[in-house]
């Protein structure tokens, strides 16, 4: 058990190192991506280019540049933006994190509840009309691009139906900190939560239904039936319980991926200044340090989430543990 844990941690460290090297190489060593040219602007004189190169430390060898970059990111935390030299990257990310977390937490609650409800209902009525309808609806939910859904939500709630009873409560786009105004925070995030959650509700509903239906073919379900247990008890106590293992795994991975940049589209469409929006904005100005830092932080978050899921899995499933 301990060896597996240590192995997993070593693997995590290796993957993090690999990702940081990869991100660094993508931005600083890809043919055609000359950061100095980006900073100096188009058609800069060679002297300017050289000066910029020296100024930003881009004339040093790649390993040195990598080490300096990592030191600035993780040790001293004083990496500054190329575009706006007063902007410190690490505090900007720290400031944006609560917005992303608020968005993803709320959406996660919605999609777990919705996914459970749809998966259980469809499995209970499997093969019947309700099941088919729920599955078609879930599939449509999965297929809707989240940025498009966000735009349509804005179209209705901010414009077309804003003056009707349904949407007159909707505030203007943007984030309201929870500490300032809890109700305003809730109002500002309610529609983004639903927008982000819809696709996941469909996905989780489908996955849960499939795994419940598969488990219904196992022997212990037949045993439970033979014991004379009620159908609902078999579904909720026996089948659902077993199906929750993949459900929890998926949840861990998706949650990590969303905090680590997956919520970017939703943040952009609803004007929420989270980490994704920060990445997007720096994308528009090609501000490499900000992009790099947010990509790195996000990937590390995803790696840690993956490792936690694996460890949780290890704890939950005796078959893996004894292996």
């Amino acid at each position: 058990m301990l060896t597996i844990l240590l192995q997993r941690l070593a693997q995590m460290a290796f993957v993090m190192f690999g990702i940081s090297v990869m991100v660094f190489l993508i931005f600083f060593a890809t043919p055609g991506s000359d950061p100095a040219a980006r900073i100096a602007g188009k058609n800069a004189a060679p002297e300017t280019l050289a000066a910029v190169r020296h100024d930003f430390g881009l004339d040093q060898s790649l390993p040195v540049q990598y080490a300096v970059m990592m030191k600035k990111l993780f040790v001293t935390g004083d990496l500054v933006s190329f575009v706006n030299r007063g902007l410190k990257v690490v505090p900007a990310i720290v400031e944006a994190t609560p917005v992303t977390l608020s968005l993803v937490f709320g959406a996660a609650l919605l999609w777990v509840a919705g996914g459970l409800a749809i998966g259980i209902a469809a499995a209970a009525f499997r093969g019947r009309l309700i099941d088919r309808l729920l599955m078609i609806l879930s599939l449509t939910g999965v297929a809707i691009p989240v940025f498009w859904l966000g735009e349509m939500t804005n179209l209705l709630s901010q414009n077309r139906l804003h003056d009707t009873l349904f949407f007159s409560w909707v505030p203007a786009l943007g984030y309201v900190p929870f500490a300032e105004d809890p109700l305003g925070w809730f109002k500002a995030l309610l529609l983004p939560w639903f927008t982000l959650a819809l696709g996941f509700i469909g996905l989780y509903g489908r996955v849960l239904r499939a795994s419940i239906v598969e488990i219904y073919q196992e022997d212990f379900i037949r045993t439970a039936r033979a014991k004379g247990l009620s159908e609902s008890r078999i579904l909720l106590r026996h089948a659902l319980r077993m199906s929750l293992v993949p459900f929890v795994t998926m949840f861990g991975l998706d949650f990590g991926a969303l905090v680590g940049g997956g919520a970017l589209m939703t943040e952009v469409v609803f004007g929420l200044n989270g980490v994704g929006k920060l990445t997007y904005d720096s994308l528009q100005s090609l501000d490499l340090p900000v992009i790099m830092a947010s990509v790195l932080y996000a990937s590390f978050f995803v790696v840690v989430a993956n490792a936690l899921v694996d460890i949780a899995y290890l704890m939950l499933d005796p078959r893996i543990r004894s292996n």
Partner: protein
Amino acid sequence: MPRDAAKTTGNPSAGGAEGFRPGERQPASTDLALQEEMLDPPAPSPWVSAFRSLLRDRAAVCAAAVLMIIIGASVLAPAYARFVAGVDPFSSNLEGEILLNGESVPVLQPSTEGLGLGVIPIGPTWQVNGYFLGADEQGRDVMARLLYGGRATLLIGGLATALTLTLAAAIGITAGFFGGWIDQVLSRILDILWAFPIYLLAISLSIVLLTARIEIGPFVIDSGSLVIPIAIIGIIYVPYVARPIRGQVLALRRSEFVMAAIGLGVPSHRILLRDILPNVVTTLIVFVPLMMALNISTETALSFLSLGVQSPGASWGTIIRDGQSLLYSRPWVSTAPGLVIIVTIVALNILGDGVRDAFDSRSKLRP
């Protein structure tokens, strides 16, 4: 890794003995000629029976028909633009006028809202002979761009799928069959790629590649070329396919017929070609529609962030982006491509379920 682990625990038999699968070579070719008179007519080949069961799946056939219509419409985009609507979907048309109900109407009208600055493009005319869905901010016909956008989106989705599957098959088979340090190296690379948040990886690559003009030997890739989104989308999903294939090849490697072939001294390349590949091909086929759906949604998302297809080119994602500033005045510009994306992805998923049931009836894969 967790997703694989989920699969193996959900289906303990996945790594064990392999039963008969479509496309699988039978190890011993017994001479059936003598017994033929007594036996039933030979069973159809696994390919034929898979296709037959796919054809019996009504939902899958309907989905395939819908996809055919969408593909056909996209292929005919130039014909529509030139002969039906008579517009150029890629150059702006700021001064143009069209005939509407016998009146001449400018394509871009001065805005009446707010300060009266700016222009509002013409809304949907609902007439096929021009501006069926209206115009965008540059006076370009949205319907024609939607059809052309389908070309780009479907082309990128298709070619990226082909790239993903080719790379994944090569990596998965090599890692699974040869094992040892080759497997270690390839698996670690896949680990890194897998842990990378997909959109951030795509965004990082796009930023760097799209703005640059790349010269690799004699090949020059201009910025804005479709090759770049195809390569990016094709690469980021390789681990999703390569990992299950590696697992499958590992199991095949231990199966009796491969052991027998090795024991008989059959050279590796022949075993790979005759014994391993036919089994892997069915897995790859199961992945095709689902990867298409995934790639199309990735492409539209990247294009929406202006990191995919570049202006003045069109894809379903870029049109949604173009429509963003017109959302409240001309909502159809953004709405229409979104609806088409939804229909396409739903159809691909239904077809994908059908293909999986037909080719992988024991449902070992749950991509």
